[in-house]
């Protein structure tokens, strides 16, 4: 059993006294008239596994290249470990990158590939040999050291690329879609290995990915990007449970969005008149004015079948089961209400399928609790 490192009481990003390791200030990068990165400010702390998540063209790769020094910003500053590196060329930055295509030098062996960066630092031969050995060991690729990249499988290449970019002990390791070129099975195993490796070395990782599952499993924090801007930065749990806007809620997982209007505040809860005709009561810490149009976001697995109809009818929907998707462990039910709204509910299949209560065209009442979702204003 491997022991996890002690979790501090405060995570570094919550500790007001912690100094950020990477500080990005109002960074903008324009290509012609297009803002690839648009006024992004971001702090990353030492030892984090930070993910930039977004669909293609959202600017996440450009942000990574700006950190590597392969692009220079139109405006804004980048500090790494207290040093302003904005104008430092890539070959002088304490940062290494693992490229999406791995970019292994085809005319060099695995050993020579790893050695390349060490040579540039003019390290003595003994130390270089030691570091190469250390990296080959760490990534379990010692038997491959005399091979050339075209004699390696995809997974092996990924390891060599990782070894090469870690060999110089960078302050910051950038990974561009690190698992993008691997097949699904290999990808899942490698996710855990990558996290273990990062925890063992303590190096700060910044990775770019379009795969939300990958970001959720690996990251300490995730930044969701869209159109060059950061929509939300938070832990995977917070991003999933407390999205701050409609975009993030819809981007990660599936979600039910019910529109409505605030009619009353009761302590830390608000009463919302829903467009589908009922009332919703949700917890919200935001100071909404009465009458504000809002959206209630509830994940399908937070929905449940209502056993005891009646009561005040708050947080409840009535409809007909229109669709059932059986996924083995869970089933997804789509319920159409009288007003035409489609709601999604995920139930764990505790009983064998044949004995389940709900079936097609059946009338169903579903409900949720005030703390099971968030109230969004945009």
């Amino acid at each position, binding site marked *: 059993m491997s022991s996890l490192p002690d979790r501090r009481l405060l995570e570094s990003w919550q500790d007001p006294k912690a100094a950020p390791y990477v500080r990005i200030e109002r960074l903008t990068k324009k290509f012609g008239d297009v803002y690839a990165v648009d006024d992004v400010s971001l702090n990353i702390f030492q030892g984090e596994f930070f993910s930039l998540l977004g669909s293609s063209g959202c600017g996440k790769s450009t942000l990574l290249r700006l950190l590597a020094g*392969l692009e220079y910003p139109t405006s804004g500053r980048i500090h790494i470990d207290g040093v302003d590196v904005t104008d430092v060329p890539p*070959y002088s930055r304490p940062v*290494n990158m693992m490229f999406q*295509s791995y*970019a292994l030098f*085809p005319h060099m062996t695995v050993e020579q590939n790893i050695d*390349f*960066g060490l040579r540039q630092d003019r390290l003595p031969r003994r130390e270089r040999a030691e570091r190469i050995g250390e990296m080959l060991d760490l990534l379990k690729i010692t038997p491959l050291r005399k091979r050339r990249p*075209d004699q390696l499988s995809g997974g092996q290449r990924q390891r060599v690329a990782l070894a090469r970019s870690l060999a110089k002990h960078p302050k910051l390791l950038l990974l561009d879609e690190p698992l993008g070129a691997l097949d699904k099975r290999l990808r899942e195993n490698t996710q855990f290995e990558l996290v273990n490796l990062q925890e063992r070395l303590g190096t700060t990782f910044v990775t770019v990915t379009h795969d939300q599952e990958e970001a959720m499993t690996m990251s300490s924090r995730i930044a969701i990007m869209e159109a060059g801007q950061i929509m939300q930065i938070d832990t995977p749990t917070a991003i999933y449970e407390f999205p701050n806007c409609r975009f993030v809620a819809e981007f990660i997982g599936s979600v039910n969005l019910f529109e409505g209007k605030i009619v009353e505040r009761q302590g830390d809860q608000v009463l919302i008149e829903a467009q589908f005709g009922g009332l919703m009561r949700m917890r919200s810490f935001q100071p909404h004015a009465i009458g504000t149009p809002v959206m209630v976001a509830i994940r399908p697995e937070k929905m449940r079948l209502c056993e005891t109809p009646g009561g005040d009818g708050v947080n409840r929907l009535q409809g007909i089961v229109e669709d059932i998707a059986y996924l083995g462990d869970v089933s997804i039910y789509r319920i159409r209400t009288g007003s035409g709204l489609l709601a999604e509910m995920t139930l764990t299949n505790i009983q064998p399928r044949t004995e389940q209560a709900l079936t097609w065209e059946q009338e169903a009442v579903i409900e949720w609790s005030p703390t099971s979702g968030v109230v969004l204003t945009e």
Partner: protein
Amino acid sequence: MKRRSWPLLSILVFGYAFLYVPILLLILYSFNESRLVTVWSGFSLKWYGELLHNRQLLDAAWLSVRIAALNASVAVVLGTLAANALVRHGRFRGRTGLELLLTAPLVMPDVIIGLSLLLLFVTLQQTVGWPDGRGFSTITIAHITFSLAYVAVVVRSRLARMDVSLEEAAMDLGARPLTVYLRITLPLIAPALLSGWLLAFTLSLDDLVIASFVSGPGATTLPMVIYSSVRMGVSPQINALATLVVALVAVAVVIAGLSMRRR
């Protein structure tokens, strides 16, 4: 088992025959004992022997090889620089102009290249006094002007296919731009440089038209000697010489092909 398609096979045989029978005949007759080129009278190496004593032919061959080698070397350097500029430096000023200049020699008739260069050399000689007479240097310069275009084409396609992230990775690992070029870019495009060199070498070696325009007295290249001697009747010595040239070119082509196939 694959089924043979007779019509296709015969077309293939005919195609190869069309291309190679003349050359094979030439090689065969170079070993002919008879003085008459068209009558076979037995195997002999005597024309190769006589060739070794033919000063005029040997001098011309040596001149051609020297011009071809120098031309190829300079053309590879200039052509590679041009290819680099076009592939790696985006939209710089004068890019379209450079591209046009590089394509022109590929499509321009040799006669026009030769004539225009001759006019240029003559004017230069009258105004600045250089080149002082025409010969080795003018032929070499003329050959470089069109060879570098071919080299640029070969190197350019190789550079364009090369993954830019390889250079970025090298820079990310701490290599300065010059190191990146010498340790990463050059080794990776080396096969293209070699085949570009060989291409330029062969283009120069077999050029007759341009060389005839820009050469002067005392500088006669091999194609010029062969051409003028053929007009007086083909000597079997020419066959022997041509066989040697074919062998040389074949070796060059094989080397170029092998090096391009190697990644």
